[in-house]
């Protein structure tokens, strides 16, 4: 049985990781949870008979903890991941792993000397239907001429509340203007940038942004090119109506469409449709296990195998995401200055 410690007990932990780990009770047991708010820590720990505290150091010292789920605020991810690795713990870090290259460099050094595995929880990359679809796309020899990610979602709480009884949350404070486009890409587009990177035919090609804009009230549109592949990222959040989250890859002779359920709900995997010139179409309906199951099962396998360091191109994916977000942010800055 693998002991899990969780730092940060917000909606992602309550609605995503705790229900997932309950399904995977044959492999995992949550033994220790930490939050800066003592009442939250106690309220989350009590129903699952886990230890709790407001001290991350206490969690790292708990010998029952084999893997730390880092679900704290983004600004703390680098410190929490490094401390966990140095304590000999495996780490599953929620996205984003880091928001900047300085953090990435520190993580690269820590991961290089780690005695346990480090993974990032980009669940779409661990979705079993997505993995199979991308394998088929690649096996056919397809080279994407266009990649599109479109994310249209109602407010998150609608899905959190369908997944579990989430503790009452503090009301959001009034914002000080629109979030930076860069931050939006590193917190939302980040879900799919690892898949974009896997589908790019030429990873060595330079990135060129041709358009980047913030779309009020909360969304963005980014157009770019990486070699001969056009990339489009679109998001619109907080809209009423059903969710629509899609990744498309187009080549001269094939089209791959991945359709994702919203985050937080546990309604199975993505669906896929791979259409080829000539009319042959392979479709895969949603499987019961989703990317949340996939990432935790991957972690269990990594621990059993004794894997160490960053797994599955985690650091390369993070570097790609930061480069794209930085380039888009610079484009917006130049456009405003012009």
């Amino acid at each position, binding site marked *: 049985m693998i002991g899990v410690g969780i730092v940060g007990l917000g909606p992602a932990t309550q609605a995503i990781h705790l229900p997932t780990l309950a399904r995977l009770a044959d492999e995992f047991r949550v033994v220790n949870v930490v939050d800066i708010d003592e009442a939250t820590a106690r309220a989350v720990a009590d129903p699952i008979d886990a230890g709790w505290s407001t001290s991350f150091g206490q969690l790292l010292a708990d010998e029952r903890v084999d893997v730390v789920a880092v679900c704290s605020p983004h600004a703390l991810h680098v410190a929490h991941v490094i401390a966990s690795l140095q304590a000999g713990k495996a780490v599953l870090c929620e996205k984003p792993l880091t928001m900047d290259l300085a953090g990435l460099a520190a993580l690269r050094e820590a991961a290089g000397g780690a005695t346990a595995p480090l993974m990032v929880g980009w669940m779409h990359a661990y979705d079993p239907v997505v993995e199979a679809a991308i394998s088929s796309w690649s096996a056919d020899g397809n080279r994407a001429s266009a990649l599109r990610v479109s994310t249209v979602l109602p407010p998150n709480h609608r899905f959190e509340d369908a997944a579990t009884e989430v*503790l009452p949350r503090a009301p959001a404070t009034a914002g000080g203007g629109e979030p930076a486009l860069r931050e939006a890409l590193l917190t939302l587009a980040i879900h799919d940038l690892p898949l974009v990177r896997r589908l790019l035919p030429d990873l060595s090609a330079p990135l060129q942004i041709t358009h980047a804009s913030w779309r009020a009230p909360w969304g963005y549109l980014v157009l770019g090119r990486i070699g001969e592949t056009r990339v489009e990222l679109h998001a619109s959040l907080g809209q009423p109506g059903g969710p629509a989250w899609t990744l498309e890859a187009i080549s001269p002779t094939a089209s791959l469409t991945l359709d994702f359920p919203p985050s937080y709900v546990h309604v199975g995997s993505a669906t896929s449709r791979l259409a080829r010139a000539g009319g042959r179409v392979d479709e895969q309906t949603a499987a019961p296990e989703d990317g949340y199951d996939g990432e935790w099962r991957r972690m269990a396998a990594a621990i059993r195998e004794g894997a160490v360091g960053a797994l599955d191109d985690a650091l390369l994916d993070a570097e790609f995401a930061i480069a794209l977000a930085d380039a888009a942010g610079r484009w917006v800055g130049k456009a405003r200055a012009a």
Partner: protein
Amino acid sequence: MTVLTIDVAEDAPERIRTAVATFPRSFRTAGPAIADVHVIGGDGGWTARATSLIQEGSRAVLVGDPVVEDARELHAVTAEAGASVLLAPAGAEDPALASLGARLGGSNGGLLECRLIASRSSSRSATTMAMLNVLRSADSPLRELHATSGNEHGLHATGRLESGRDVVLAIDISDAVRPIARLRVIASVGVIQADIPLSERSRPALLRENSALGEWHAEPAYLSSSRAVLARLHATVTGSPERSDLEVLERLIPVARELSWP
């Protein structure tokens, strides 16, 4: 919020067991001897097990995937004890069923088609219960059967619901798709269709209507059937029970026994 202690038996459906974990503010697991409420599997003999639990002090028993069984003794024991028995066939509490019922409430007559696909490993009796429950929730209980025909691959039948609406039923046994109930009503006002998943971790039900006014699609509801029935379990014990599932079962049993296939 009142926290109830709950015991989930080994044979309870896994979907309900994992759903309990998503109610940390409503339920706390406890041993069978001291729990407020109990969850059991619905294989043969469930009525006797539920009767024992009620007699030993259980405030409510939730039965997952129940097969058709005479529950008159259980009903009497439950009424005397002031306890409750909730039945949870597959897909029983899908929010789309209530929405479908609301849409159908505005139409009379016509034909309701109910086609259910069940896996090859599923219990036939539990599958029958699931279909009858879907019909009851969507429109009204099945009152009479006119013809049935079946083999090891499934069955079909015609009949009439208590609402007076004619119905054609089909159960198909296949692993080609995940278990699902597909309903369609062709009435004078238009066509209403619903695809209700009968397994957890499935995309939400699809509900749509075509009429002279155009096409309407229901917004997807992400509350799973298992979470919905557990919410009802909590509400039933801590508040006023809205309906007796055993009364519903008694009305379904005669028809359920007619619906059989080799």
